[in-house]
Structures are given as structure tokens and as C-alpha cells.
């Protein structure tokens, strides 16, 4: 897979799974929390992303549970997924550091 910049939703989904396996609705609420309420994934968007991430081998199905007659499928990060997320996080951090240092060149942080 190429190293194109990752979409924010994808990045947040992988981040949600980095703490342990989660089911669909768990990912949605976790992503909302991680993003401080800024990103609320819709079901369709989530499953399109999950389908692609599975195809790319970055996530996999962990297990399935039935709760209140409803199917819950749990997903987990694979080792390539962890690697990719670490790479992406480092890239974003470097970008953020560059932006901050240019906005506050003398090290004056407000």
C-alpha cells in the first residue's frame, strides 16, 4: 500500500482500535470521544472504512457476540495496522510541531 496521507476518519478508527478490540458502535462512540466531539461517524462511512482497512490487512475480525439479539462483531488492529498507525501518528506530530514552531518562532507559546 502506498503511503498516501490517511483520512482523519481512518486515523481515528485505527486509534480507537489501538486500545483493544471494539465493535461498530463502540468505535463510533470512542472516535467521538477521541476527537473531542468533532467527529461523529455515520454507520455507512464506518463500514466503508472498515471494509477497506480489512482489505488492506490493517484490521481483522476479533470475535462476535450476540447482545440483546443483536450481532456485535469486534475488530482488532493487526501488526501491519499498528505499524501504519504509528507511522501516521509520527508524521502528523512532525507536521504539528512544524506548524507550532512557525506560529511561535521565539518559542513564545500562548
Amino acid at each position, binding site marked *: 500500500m502506498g503511503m498516501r496521507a490517511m483520512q482523519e476518519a481512518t486515523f481515528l478508527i485505527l486509534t480507537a482500535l489501538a486500545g483493544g478490540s471494539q465493535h*461498530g*458502535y463502540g468505535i*463510533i462512540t470512542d472516535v467521538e470521544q477521541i476527537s473531542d466531539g468533532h467527529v461523529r461517524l*455515520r*454507520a*455507512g*462511512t*464506518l*463500514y*466503508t472504512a472498515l*471494509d*477497506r482497512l480489512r*482489505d488492506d490487512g490493517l484490521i481483522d475480525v476479533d470475535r462476535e457476540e450476540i447482545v440483546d439479539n*443483536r*450481532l*456485535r*462483531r469486534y475488530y482488532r488492529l493487526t501488526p501491519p495496522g499498528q505499524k501504519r498507525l504509528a507511522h501516521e501518528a509520527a508524521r502528523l506530530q512532525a507536521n504539528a510541531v512544524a506548524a507550532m514552531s512557525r506560529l511561535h518562532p521565539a518559542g513564545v507559546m500562548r
Partner: protein
Amino acid sequence: MTDATELERRYRRLLKCFPARYRREHEQEILSVLMAGAAEGQRRPGLAESADLVMSAFFIWWREVTRQPRWRWERRHRRLIARMRVAIGIWLLVVGVILLSDGYWWGVLMVTPAALHFYLAYRLRHAVQS
């Protein structure tokens, strides 16, 4: 009919937009996510939510159609099939041009399937060796 079953019935109808193979694997799961996110007493899917589902179904279909060939036969004959697709694409374009020059405006409609064939040929030629 309670609000919840009414809502579920409407969600199920929306989920029919997805390819059958995908639905077999994910319909129950997506339905649980949709129902978990529904508001108390909600009877119908929101507009934005419905649009999101239809768009997603389109993406899943698109991926299904353009996914690199998995069949052994098509992989083994990748070059031949790519050439056949290019030939079919050209043929469709020629037919389109003939129709247009005869004054049939709908000859333009040949462009879409021709473009699809060219795209699939391109994907085949650049499929990962496996």
C-alpha cells in the same frame, strides 16, 4: 407496529442497496449499529444518515466491481482479458460515433461502458502478481 420495528424495517430497506455478498456478512452488524445510534421513539432514518448509507453502498459496489480479479482463470489470462476489454471499449466507442453521426444523440451513452472497460483493463494490467 412499534417505533423500533418500524425504524428497523426502514433501515433494512436502505441496506438493500448494498451488494448481496456484503449484506450476507454485514447486514445484521450494521443494523445493530444503526439501532444503537437511534434516538428514543425515532421512526424513520434521518436524511443525512440515509444519504450516507446510499453513498457507502455505492462505494462498496464500486470496490466489488473493480476489485482485482480473484479467479485463477482471469489471473492466468490477465493480458488477454485486458486486451479484450480494450477491444470491447473501442468497439463501443466506434458504435457510439456511428450513432452520433447518424443523428442519434444517445450514442453518447456508449462512453460510460467504454470507459468502464478501459478502466478494468487498466486495473488488470496493473494487478499485483500473485
